């Protein structure tokens, strides 16, 4: 290990003794989730190209535990919506979101996914938060890969601090109900 460049994630706060380490289950689960987010790219336009750069060796999203890009929604944790979503595409995006298993998070990458961007028109969905709940918005048109990485890191922070009970809470169910999910 001495000459290795591998960065280990720091353990959560806890009590260390001889042969044991005590901490909260919440923190352990949060740490594990935050450092193994499987992204599901939903790339429709130029932001998707930036995402390709983000995944490639130079920016290397794999450093954050997102090595495995999931092209099936079922095992994916993090839906990354990149690009203009037309209204005709909206039901498909919803379906993809519905097929993801809990816990699931959503990042809206770029102006179009966040608000419709320059497309102030009848055929374009004015932000994906009209149809699915969004956790992190990444601004930019398109955002640089650094910004996308920053968005993922912001999400990691959310995931790390999320209660394991959150997905069963009435507030969360209410949130989903407000989107008719």
């Amino acid at each position, binding site marked *: 290990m001495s000459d290795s460049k591998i960065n280990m994630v720091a353990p959560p706060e806890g009590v260390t003794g001889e042969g044991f380490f005590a901490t909260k289950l919440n923190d352990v689960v949060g740490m594990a989730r935050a450092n193994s987010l499987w992204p599901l790219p939903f790339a429709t336009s130029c932001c998707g190209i930036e995402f390709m750069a983000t995944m490639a060796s130079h920016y290397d999203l794999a450093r954050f535990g997102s090595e495995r890009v999931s092209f099936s929604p079922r095992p994916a944790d993090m839906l990354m919506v990149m690009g203009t979503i*037309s*209204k*005709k595409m*909206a039901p498909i995006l919803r379906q993809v979101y519905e097929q993801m298993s809990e816990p699931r998070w959503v990042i809206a990458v770029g102006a179009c996914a966040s*608000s*419709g961007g*320059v497309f*102030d*028109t*009848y*055929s*374009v969905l*004015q*932000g994906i938060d*009209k149809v699915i709940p969004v956790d992190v918005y990444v601004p930019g048109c398109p955002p640089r890969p650094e910004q996308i990485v920053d968005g993922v890191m912001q999400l990691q922070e959310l995931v790390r601090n999320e209660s394991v009970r959150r997905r069963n809470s009435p507030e969360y169910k209410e949130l989903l109900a407000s989107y008719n999910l």
Partner: protein
Amino acid sequence: MALETAYIQEKLSQKFGNNVLNFEMKRDIFTLEATPNAIHDVIRFLKEEEDLNFHFLTDLTGIHFPDNDETHQFAVVYQMHNWVENVRLRVKTFLPENPETVTITDLFLCANWMEREAWDFFGINFIGHPQLKRILNMDEMVSHPMRKEFPMEDSGRTDKDDRFFGRTPVNN
């Protein structure tokens, strides 16, 4: 010998008389108008007549003219091309409110999607079309968005500033 516009005009006038009118050279393409009753026969004639031979339908689309009189509210524009002589032709037909015209899918299979597009955006009903339904917009849409009475912007927009979208007379 190249295909002369005067010859096209003469052939059409001979065959269709007053049903073809307003011949003119407009933006480098010879343009004519046909009455809605005659349009199908005009297109067929242009395609099938040996020495006209407009065998290629480049485009078919609609236009909305809300300021025109009642019988000229909509136009259907057919762009045709004779590849052998490399001559193009634009045929227009004007339609009233609730526009309806005959399909030309029996002459040109490519007209199928073009007519669906014209239906989608202008609500022009092509009688006899095998599957006249929306092609680009979502099926649930109720408006025909390229008609002038429908707004361009989405009604659900929440955080858009009109100034940045050229929707105010003065942008400052």
